């Protein structure tokens, strides 16, 4: 069984600034990993390295056992700040169908299977009634749900979510996390989030990133990890025993 993600000794720098330092990470099938860490700690960079969108200065990246450029089409990706063009003349339906491109191939049109998949994905994020809307006519949260639908429609083996709940209202957030819980029965998920309470409830494993990655292949982080990552003592909220991120101390 190949690992879903395998990073070995990854270094990335922008100019003189080192963003990732000696990062090792292994993600196995059906892992649900939450990544927390301060702003500018390299979380989005790490996700882009996994996807092969950024080539590290040093280190080995394997996604689904191969070069990420080859395998990333099997990954559903929801970026934090979607790099999309807001005024682009495109409907919700067309955006979601776009996720099927990897299965359709060029020179072909979308068929019934693609339409069914798009419909299914929009239903899952409760956006089906908006399918004919212009993408610019949606609120930030609705748009985020559309991008989540677009990532689901690819039939991903791995889902990568960068702050997926940003701008999504509270009720929808809960439903969204429940959806992830359902999805992780079949696929692996990596989620970057500031929402530590959500992380503590829903994910199986937690890593903390601030240039260096603190990860013990488990749901626990030591206070030392957090200190080292955030650079100062962090006040942790513990949600009672079942949902602890922090080891008892």
């Amino acid at each position, binding site marked *: 069984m190949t690992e879903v993600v395998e990073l070995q000794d990854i270094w990335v720098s922008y100019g003189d600034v080192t963003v990732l330092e000696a990062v090792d990470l292994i993600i196995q099938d059906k892992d649900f990993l939450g990544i927390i860490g301060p702003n500018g700690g390299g979380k989005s960079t790490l996700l882009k390295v996994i996807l092969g969108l950024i080539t590290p200065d040093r280190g080995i990246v394997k996604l689904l056992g191969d070069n990420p450029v080859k395998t990333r089409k099997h990954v559903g990706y929801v970026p934090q700040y979607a790099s999309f*063009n807001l005024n682009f*003349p495109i409907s919700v339906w067309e955006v979601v169908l*776009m996720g099927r491109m990897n299965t359709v191939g060029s020179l072909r049109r979308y068929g019934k299977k693609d339409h069914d998949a798009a419909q299914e994905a929009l239903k899952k994020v409760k956006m089906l009634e908006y399918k004919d809307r212009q993408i610019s006519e949606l609120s930030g949260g609705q748009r985020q749900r559309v991008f989540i639908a677009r990532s689901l429609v690819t039939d991903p083996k791995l889902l990568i979510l960068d702050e997926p709940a940003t701008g999504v209202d509270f009720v929808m957030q809960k439903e969204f996390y429940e959806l992830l819980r359902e999805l992780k029965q079949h696929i692996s998920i990596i989620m970057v989030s500031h929402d530590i309470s959500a992380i503590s409830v829903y994910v199986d494993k937690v890593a903390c990133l601030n240039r260096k990655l603190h990860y013990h292949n488990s749901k626990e982080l030591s206070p030392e990890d957090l200190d080292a990552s955030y650079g100062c003592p962090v006040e942790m909220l513990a949600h009672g025993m079942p949902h602890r991120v922090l080891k008892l101390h």
Partner: protein
Amino acid sequence: MIEILQYDFMRNALLTAILASIACGIIGVYVVVKKIVSISGGISHASFGGVGLGYFLGINPLYGLIPFSLFSALVMGLVSKRSKMSEDTATGILWSLGMAIGIIFINLTPGYAPDLMTYLFGNILTVSTSDLHVMLALDALIVVIVYAFYKEFMAMCFDEEFASVIGVAVERMYLLLLCLIALTIVLLIKVVGIILIIALLTMPATLSAHYTHNLRNMMYLSIFFGAFFSIMGLSLSYLLDIPSGATIILVMAGVYIIHFIYDGLTKKVHA
């Protein structure tokens, strides 16, 4: 007015207006939605080097133009994507470089360069039947390529990052789009000339964006607007005996400005 159609040059001019509007409508929409107006202006101006090359070699400048504009599109695309230079700067440099090359070639060509002004400002009345054949072939090529890669172009223009994750060769598609822009410029050059092309490329597309939010419909509408305004401008230029290229642009700009003001006024009333 109808009797002018018995002249060959006038029939050619009308056909040119329609053929140019097809390429212009399709590619202009991409230029506008992808916000690559300035790089398109750069390709257009740089391709003046090709006109100069054509004169220098003593061939139809259109044949110098095609390889040269494709070449400048590729250089501009590669420099802006791969080097650390900003796209803006690269565009500015290549823009002038191409023009400079053209000027030197024309200077080196013995004798007077006939209808040089045509290439700079356009003169739709000088389109020959063999030019029309070239335009027809280019139009067909553009339509076929856009039809074949419609999904890829759409994904690339909408969200490059997602497109590359999903497996679109984004850089290749971008270069292909720039090449299509280069070919469109070749098609448009006799209509409005290098200097005015960018207006023809952007105005019909921008106008159509007010009426539809669908990429395909936007293309159809831009083709219609382009053809309508070109023919209107052409007729006006014939009646008033003024340059056709500039008249077409002025008609378009006039409609656009009126539309813009009307839009602003009606919005205020509603508010």
